């Protein structure tokens, strides 16, 4: 199957310098944060790729780059063969691309405008793209969308604050579905929710994917959730992908020491008492990353080249991994 979404050596640098006047007076050099470095991957139509990693690893930045909220400093992103830079232009093909790619956000309390009624929130993509113009038809479509996420047309009359976190997240999903997208980017969609509600949302997302043939990019720090929802997994560390491949391969037989460490850090719910390597160290400051492999100061398998050469992402045991030890 051919790739539906492609990222080709995408990098994003943020200018985090102090204001100009302070720089001049305090003689500080400008500083740049390399949030995402040379990230490349494909997502096939109808599959779910998950990106996991700890805070600051760049996974949310990747999500925002794909959807066009940020522009990549380097590299190219295509969806269904079209360059995503197109969405900032006007015209029919730009609108069509815009409709195709939608996003679900992390915080169900901040992602809905508190002053809008739910029906208007869900109808916004329809009105913006003039998918329907007749008000009765819009109402009917909104009711249908709310039905997809197990809410009723009557709920559309209410305001977001009258709903629980899980219900709000479902409203977000209904809004994202309103423009008939093919690709949904989900940025930590369940991490603000309680587990029982998280299960509702995850089940709903799986059902919708099956029924509508959606393609998902799923961003999360929770490995169990990622394991449940995804087909393929990419593990990110300090702006780079360190291991990416089929879920069963990556989680069942991790090849990068960082993936191993993340897996060992998951609390042992079933209390099997299986042996685990203790986790050590913390994520380094991204403004001043270590030389060579960024993971080398925490790595139990560190050897000669690790603090000098940066390992490339290479094909190894049915997945790609960026580690000197994997040869």
């Amino acid at each position: 199957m051919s790739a539906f979404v492609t990222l080709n050596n995408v990098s994003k640098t943020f200018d985090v310098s102090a204001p100009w006047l302070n720089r001049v007076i305090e003689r500080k050099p400008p500083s740049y944060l390399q949030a995402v470095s040379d990230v490349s991957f494909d997502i096939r139509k109808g599959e779910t790729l998950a990106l996991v990693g700890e805070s600051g690893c760049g996974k949310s930045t990747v999500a925002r780059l794909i959807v066009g909220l940020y522009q990549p400093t380097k590299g190219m992103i295509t969806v269904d063969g079209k360059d995503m830079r197109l969405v900032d232009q006007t015209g029919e093909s730009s609108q069509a691309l815009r409709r195709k790619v939608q996003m679900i956000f992390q915080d169900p309390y901040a992602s809905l405008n508190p002053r809008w009624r739910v029906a208007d929130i869900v109808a916004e993509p329809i009105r913006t793209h003039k998918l329907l113009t007749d008000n009765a038809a819009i109402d009917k479509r909104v009711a249908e969308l709310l039905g997809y996420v197990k809410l009723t047309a009557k709920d559309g009359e209410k305001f977001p604050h009258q709903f629980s976190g899980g219900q709000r997240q479902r409203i977000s999903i209904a809004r994202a579905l309103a423009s008939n997208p093919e690709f949904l980017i989900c940025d930590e969609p369940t991490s603000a929710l309680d587990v029982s509600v998280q299960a509702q949302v995850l089940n709903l997302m799986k059902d919708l994917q099956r029924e509508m043939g959606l393609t998902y990019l799923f961003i999360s720090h929770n490995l169990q959730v990622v394991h449940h929802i995804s087909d393929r997994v990419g593990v990110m560390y300090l702006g780079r992908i360190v291991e990416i491949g089929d879920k069963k391969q990556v989680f069942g037989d991790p090849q990068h020491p960082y993936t191993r460490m993340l897996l060992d850090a998951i609390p042992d719910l079933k209390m099997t008492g299986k042996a685990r390597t203790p986790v050590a160290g913390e994520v380094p400051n991204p403004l001043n990353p270590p030389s060579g492999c960024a993971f080398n100061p925490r790595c139990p398998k560190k050897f000669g080249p690790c603090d000098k050469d940066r390992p490339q992402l290479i094909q190894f045991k049915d997945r790609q991994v960026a580690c000197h030890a994997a040869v």
Partner: protein
Amino acid sequence: MDTLKRFFDGDIWWSFKQSPLTIGASIVALICILGAVLSPLLAPHNPYDLAQISLLNSNLPPSWMKEGVASFPIGTDQQGRDILSTIMYGSRVSLLVAVSAVLMSIVMGVSLGLLSGYVGGRLDSFIMRIADIQLSFPAILVALLLAGVGRQFLPRDQQDSLAIYVIVFSIGLTGWVQYARTVRGSALVEKSKEYVQAARVIGVSKWRIMVKHVLPNVLGPVLVIATLNVATAILTEATLSFLGVGMPPTQPSLGTLINEGQNFLLSGEWWLTFFPGLALVAMVMSVNLVGDWLRDALNPKLR
């Protein structure tokens, strides 16, 4: 109807009922405002109708004093006009000027603040530097300058009739900075929230996001400042009129009345300044108290 029901059921109405001081203040404010707005209907006399005034009634003290007359409850001025009526008509002018000036500040400040906060970049720096420069002068000085200079550019015979526009403009122009800064700050916060990002992902245009999404969410603090600023604007107008660059004696505001009355303060006709002054204090203080309450009621942290 539904909205009304929600309001009386809501937290704001409840917090209003909990505060006797606010209830008192709003009653006083309501009396002042009604008295001013409806002065042509409510005032016992029309002080500017020459047919109704008589020099025979000039300089009468309040009715409870020895020479007082019941039909002029708080006395008359040297032209025989009823002080109560002049105060009511004067309050109307003061209120009109203050409300118009505040509206002008809001329109200017909110739109510039919104642009500054949402668009950012050089436009933001430009608008905010102008605001900084304006803030480095005392507001009253700017208003004084504008009112004084603005007046010189008008033809002499129209100076009095156009005075109200000049004064609204000069007070309005000094007030926008506060709104612009507040709105800019809130716009920066709202801009980073996910619902704005969601609208961008949907493909909503920048202008529509600004007006439909950000604007409704930054107006809360504006309402509070506006209420408090009406009180300040009444005072500014009174000050300008007192200094002689405000409303002309043919269309006197409270400030003009106080200014005129102070000439007679030492000759014993204290009621000429005292009552307009009292009306000014009552109006400004009650509006301020309501504004203070509104600020606390709309602040979720203090609830």
